[in-house]
């Protein structure tokens, strides 16, 4: 029965491999920058706010371009890497090049607050 459930989940694309097997992560990590893995989906206004308002805010965009790479996972369409469960969206997993979790940011933030979070992450990584 367990195998059947696993087979169904895999067929539905709901279970991915590990983060180190994730193509988007591998590509992002190769840049040497910190990876921000965003879980979102269509019809999530808070996710849209982060993508269409916060990430393009000049204060945030400058930091993102300089120190981070964003990869996005649609929770209803994409394979989600093992070990990265979520309780709500948007959820942003902050990952180092080894796929280790540095921090998790759940929900949206104002651009100014999010810029401060990025600064804290960068400072901690030094």
């Amino acid at each position, binding site marked *: 029965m367990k195998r059947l459930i696993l087979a169904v989940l895999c067929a539905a694309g709901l279970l991915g491999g590990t983060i180190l097997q994730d193509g988007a992560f591998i590509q992002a990590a190769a840049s040497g920058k910190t990876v921000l893995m965003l879980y979102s989906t269509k019809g999530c*206004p*808070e996710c*849209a*706010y982060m993508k269409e*308002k916060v990430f393009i805010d000049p204060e945030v965009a400058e930091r993102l371009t300089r120190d981070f790479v964003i990869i996005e996972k649609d929770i209803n369409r994409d394979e989600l890497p093992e070990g990265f469960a979520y309780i709500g969206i948007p959820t942003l997993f902050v990952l180092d090049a080894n796929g280790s979790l540095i921090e998790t940011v759940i*929900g*949206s933030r*104002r651009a100014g607050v999010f810029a401060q979070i990025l600064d804290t992450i960068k400072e901690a990584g030094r």
Partner: protein
Amino acid sequence: MKKLLVYMAWIGSLWAFDAQDLKRLREEQSCPRCDLRGADLSGMELIGAELQGADLRGALLDGVELVAAELDGADLSGASLRSANLWKAELRSANLTRVAAQKANFKGAHLQRSEIVEANLSGAKLWKARLGEAQIVRSDFKDAELGDATLSRSDLRDSLLDGAILWKTHLVHVRMTPAQCRYAQSEEADLNATLCEE
């Protein structure tokens, strides 16, 4: 002295819940039209609970999980809902007078025709909440997140909106002060037939 004791007993009775009703709620997660005045339900898991028309005046509901709960017509006046989770809860025509709901989660909640009078909703999350024809009076929405929420026929002029996220908030036939209107426009709210006047 006797008069004082009688008065105190009367005051106490105003917030005395029915113990049987509380027991029923704990056991069945369902208690429509129950008397739960002043009950301490803080931190409880009441996901999908049926509490239509329940009397929850002065109840302690801090941190309670009321995800998708049915609270249409419930009286929550004076209740404490700090950091409570009311994601997709149904609160049509509910009375939220003087609730303390700082940082509560009302994402996708149905609050049509509810009474939000002197309520503290500062920092509350109201993404995609439906507030059509809600009666909003002297309430605090400071730093609340109202993105993609819908408000219609409400008068917001005596309520606080400072720092609130109004991104793509639908404001239909709403009355706002000119300053509130300018703020809403700067937040990219959708002002439809909104009246901007002092």
